[in-house]
């Protein structure tokens, strides 16, 4: 896939259910530990950005990655959450951290 095609590729759309990969890589990652393995809903595509996991080591990726804002119910992330059931938390996550939920 060319860099130009990659720059506009966005496998997920608002409303899609996604799961954060249960992965624990070393190095600089921007995916909070507390949301890994959890399911959420894509709220929006934020745009395409160079992968910070590469930038952190001085490498500039040629193909930007899709970044999504994903919404999770607070109670799903925090079983002892005492606030209203409708409360949510939104986390910005890169495409390669997400997998589709059937």
């Amino acid at each position, binding site marked *: 896939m060319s860099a130009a095609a990659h720059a506009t590729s966005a496998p997920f759309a608002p409303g899609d259910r996604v799961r954060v990969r249960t992965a624990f890589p070393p190095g600089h990652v921007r995916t*909070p530990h507390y949301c890994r393995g959890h399911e959420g809903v894509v709220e929006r595509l934020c745009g395409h950005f160079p992968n910070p996991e590469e930038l952190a080591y*001085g490498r500039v990726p040629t193909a930007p990655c899709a970044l999504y804002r994903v919404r999770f119910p607070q109670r799903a992330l925090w079983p002892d959450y005492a606030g209203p059931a409708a409360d949510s938390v939104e986390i910005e996550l890169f495409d390669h951290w997400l997998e589709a939920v059937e």
Partner: protein
Amino acid sequence: MSQSPKDPGDVRGAIEAGRRHHDMGGRDAGPVDRSQHAHDPWENKTDAILRLLADPARGPVMRIDELRRGIEEMGPGIYDELSYYERWIASIATILMEKGVLTADEIGRKIEDVRARHADAPPRREGFGGGTR
């Protein structure tokens, strides 16, 4: 959410869970200090240095992602002991050494120069950092 991130006994558990020390979101951390405070001049200077180094017009020399990586690699202990801008300047030094912009010897000699210049000045407060976390 039962243990403080500063609890040394928590380090092994965090490693086993695949959680790196800096990744503290949602963990108990005690009361939040909401007091306002002025930055020390060296803290403003540290902020300015990073902005200049990260300016695309200068390359950039280093990126904010590299600054974060350098801070995250401090691990438990140093990460907790240093103030916010102490973490910044320590990471900036590490990254600039990695990139060959500065050598450890150059930084060491400069620190000696500055110490000598301030040898007669009384310390303004405990330690050398501000209160910024």
